[in-house]
């Protein structure tokens, strides 16, 4: 064993080096790189009436570039608004006070994110301040429903079972995939 000692140690050293190098490459190449060494972010708050599918750690973007993420989501117990805390990268400290925030969706059914639209004010938002102008999430299904049932239809069929057509003057039939069920005159 004494003969093999140095070679053995070399083999172990090579194994450990190779393993650590592989871990480092993995950490850099395949993860989002949030190593958590010190918080280089500052918080901002924003109130929304409807979050849709927004969840914590969703990205915050300006013009498609990620500048932070959603750190926390709480419901205001008095106003019943959703209060979203954003963690914004320290490099973007000078967001104007009239910046507006909206909840957007990537693609038709993609993940929700917060899109910021910087305004033109000369004063910058301070850490912890609230973004005043917000747009809630758009519920695609509700919008489609309103479009389908809200437009004044010409054929009033009595098959609207449970569809929200009570406040509307008349309702067109719901869209069905098979055209044979549609009452075409």
């Amino acid at each position, binding site marked *: 064993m004494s003969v093999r000692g140095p070679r053995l140690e070399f083999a172990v050293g090579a194994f*450990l080096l190779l393993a650590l190098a*592989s871990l480092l490459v993995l950490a850099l190449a395949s*993860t*989002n790189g*949030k190593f*958590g060494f010190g918080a280089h972010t500052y918080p901002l708050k924003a109130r929304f009436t409807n979050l849709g599918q927004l969840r914590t750690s969703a990205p915050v973007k300006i013009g498609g570039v990620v500048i932070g993420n959603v750190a926390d989501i709480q419901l205001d117990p008095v106003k019943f608004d959703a209060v979203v805390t954003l963690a914004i990268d320290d490099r973007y400290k000078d967001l104007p006070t009239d910046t507006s925030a909206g909840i957007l969706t990537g693609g038709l059914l993609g993940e929700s994110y917060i899109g910021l639209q910087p305004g033109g004010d000369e004063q910058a938002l301070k850490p912890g301040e609230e973004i005043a102008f917000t747009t809630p999430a758009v519920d695609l299904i509700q919008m489609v429903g309103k479009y389908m049932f809200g437009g004044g239809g010409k054929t009033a069929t009595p098959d609207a079972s449970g569809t929200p057509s009570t406040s509307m003057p008349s309702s067109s039939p719901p869209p069905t995939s098979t055209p044979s069920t549609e009452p075409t005159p």
Partner: protein
Amino acid sequence: MPFIAATRSLGRAGLFSLSVLRASTPTRDFFAELVREIYKIGARSLPIIAVGGAFVGLSVTLLGYRALETYGASNQISALVGLGLYRELAPVLTALLFVGRAGSSIAAELGLMRATDQITALGLMAIDPIAKAVAPRFWAAVICVPLLTGFFCSLAITASWFEAVHVIGIDGGTFWQVLKDAVDFRHDFLVALEKSAVFGGTAALVASYVGFHAEPTVEGTSIATTRAVVNASLLVLMFNFVLSAFLFGK
């Protein structure tokens, strides 16, 4: 009374684990043994881990592509592969391969030491057999299995990249970007390493416990080897569920 017997054997295993921890003192002899064990159970396990990882990456890519293509989301294949690997597949499969490759050898070695009275001899020479023979193997496993999991992931992701980009035809830039966006450093990557450290420790403890307490016969050694592999594999799978339920089960 099977219940009391089961409780007693669990207690024996717990006391054994405790004595392993207590016997781990950083002496020169300990480090020499540790280096030897890292070589034997870590470095020598590299080929099986590498080949295993590559083929797991390939098959998960094929499977995921088939499922995602249905929804027109085949671009997301690397997110599926990455998350699946880091969260479940890589720690568990590495640990299972490690149990088969190294756990069996630990149990066989210790069983043979028991059968040839080497453990008794160490005790007679006032050398703690646990400190000499068990503790280095335990720590070598705790160190090596996370590193081997890293290898498993590298090979699996490389193989998946090859399959997805060069065979299926997904854009290479999309592959890496989707992977980076999906895998969180702390909640996925580090969790994989933590999990595999736990699994490595479990595998080594089970194997050395079974080997250390083997019947001092040839048959006893073979029984110990079998039991080490079976018990360690089952424990790894159970612990994986428990850890996943705690870490991801919100």
